[in-house]
């Protein structure tokens, strides 16, 4: 059984009027099945409001399913006694870098999680050093977060989660507020943690170019998983993705358009190299 598993998962937002009568029910997550193996890099795609953030918060037990079951390391998230163990096992990084850094010094912020779970002082320092090193921010340990760039702040937030030594990290649109260089630096950090530290990664995003290297991609729409598979399988569905208010990397779209025009190129082209190689075969001489 995988590290994270969901069966028929539901989450409803219920709005009530003044008389406490149910006014409206929104199925933010409706009937999601999920099975994530330890060590995988999973991407969840979807437009704003597709339910992907609600799903992420359930994995961290910030939200408890209103229907179905979600297990993190075989622990049922509905069981209140598991909450702290789950949050320690499946850490979470949020979208806004400013609103998740608690302390006024980088190292103190990274130490916040371990302090909360009662790690002895000496070990906290070890963990802080190790996780800052893992995200390449060790030299900034004495800096104030306010003076860092967006990408650096997000790496500090990731270090803060790593210091709790989780098996899994859930990142809820960690790059949405960053510029291209910040996005690149955060995605590279995440990939390295996945590769080197064997941390299971669940990356929630709407940037398609960030999921090209994922082991598996889930696409969400209206609270449901509507498409899943390897990036190649998912990106071959260009028209469907556009219908879902998503778009594909330019090179994928170009390959798709050429294929539509009758040129022989493979499905789901992901990189510039692939397209160039495919077209090279059309060269005479």
């Amino acid at each position: 059984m995988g590290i994270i598993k969901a069966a028929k998962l539901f989450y409803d937002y219920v709005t009530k009027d003044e008389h406490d009568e149910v006014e409206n029910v929104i199925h933010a997550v409706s009937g999601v099945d999920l099975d994530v193996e330890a060590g995988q890099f999973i991407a969840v795609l979807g437009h704003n409001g597709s339910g992907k953030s609600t799903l992420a918060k359930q994995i961290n037990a910030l939200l408890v399913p209103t229907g179905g079951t979600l297990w993190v390391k075989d622990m049922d998230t509905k069981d209140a006694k598991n909450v702290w163990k789950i949050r320690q096992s499946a850490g979470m990084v949020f979208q806004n870098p400013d609103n998740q850094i608690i302390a006024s010094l980088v190292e103190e912020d990274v130490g916040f999680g371990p302090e909360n779970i009662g790690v002895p002082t000496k070990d906290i320092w070890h963990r802080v050093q190790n996780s800052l090193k893992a995200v390449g921010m060790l030299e900034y340990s004495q800096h104030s977060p306010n003076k860092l760039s967006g990408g650096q702040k997000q790496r500090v937030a990731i270090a803060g989660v790593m210091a709790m030594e989780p098996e899994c990290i859930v990142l809820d649109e960690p790059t949405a507020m960053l510029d291209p260089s910040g996005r690149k630096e955060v995605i590279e950090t995440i990939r390295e943690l996945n590769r080197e530290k064997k941390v299971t990664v669940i990356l929630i995003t709407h940037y398609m170019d960030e999921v090209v290297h994922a082991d598996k991609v889930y696409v969400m729409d209206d609270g449901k998983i509507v498409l899943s598979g390897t990036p190649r399988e998912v990106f071959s569905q260009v028209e469907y993705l556009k219908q879902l208010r998503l778009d594909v990397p330019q090179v994928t779209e170009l390959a798709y358009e050429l294929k539509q025009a009758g040129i022989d190129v493979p499905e789901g082209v992901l990189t510039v190299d692939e397209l160039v190689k495919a077209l090279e075969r059309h060269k005479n001489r």
Partner: protein
Amino acid sequence: MIRDITIGQYYPAHSIIHRLDPRVKLLGTLVFIVTVFFVNDLLGLALATAALGAVIWLSKVPLKYMLKGLRAIFILMLFTVLLNVFLTPGTEIFRWGFLKVTWEGLFLAGKTAIRLMYLIIGSTIMTLTTTPNHLTDGLEKALSPLKKLHFPVHELSMTMSIALRFIPILLEETDKIMKAQQARCADFESGHLIQRMKSLIPILVPLFISAIRRANDLAMAMEARCYHGGAGRTKMKPLVYQKRDVVAYIIILVYILIWAAVKIWL
């Protein structure tokens, strides 16, 4: 202007003052403030100046940076000084209409200005050399006896440290909001008092909404990192007195004694 406020901003440097236990600094600041409050002769002033100068020098924080904090309260200082200059009765130097300047007034004004300045600089040194977390740790520890009376010491200190962290962020945001409204031709500078108060609404509403959203986000991020109050928490930087802290306490004690001696015998 908004960026000029130094109170509450940490200035990173490696100095003996930075390394002192926050409890020592809290007591030291308190003692300094009390003595400055009672300054009324040159000898007392010299003593306070010497103490302040020594601490500034030891803290390795540029004096210029510290004085910047004064800019924010300049108006307040000016106001107090003017009140003192014009409204103190005594030997007249010159008179202009119903306003008169007296020697006593000048003296009092000078004293008040110096007092205010020293108070601000004295407390600024503490926040400049102590990270907010360290500071609130110190407060938490110093106030911990109150826990027995069910006083929420931990919660209070956590709230304070978060507030300190978000002050610069919210100041910057205020700046951005003001500019966004100025781009829509908002005018914050003219009109009578009520008009000016009204013109603040387009700044305050977005600011409050943003602050509430941030608070929400932050609460969630803290929960996600297993925060569940002070119980069972360990400390990354527990407060343990070092030799230097004992020395500092002794110096503070000596300062008090000299001060008392001066007060009593001179």
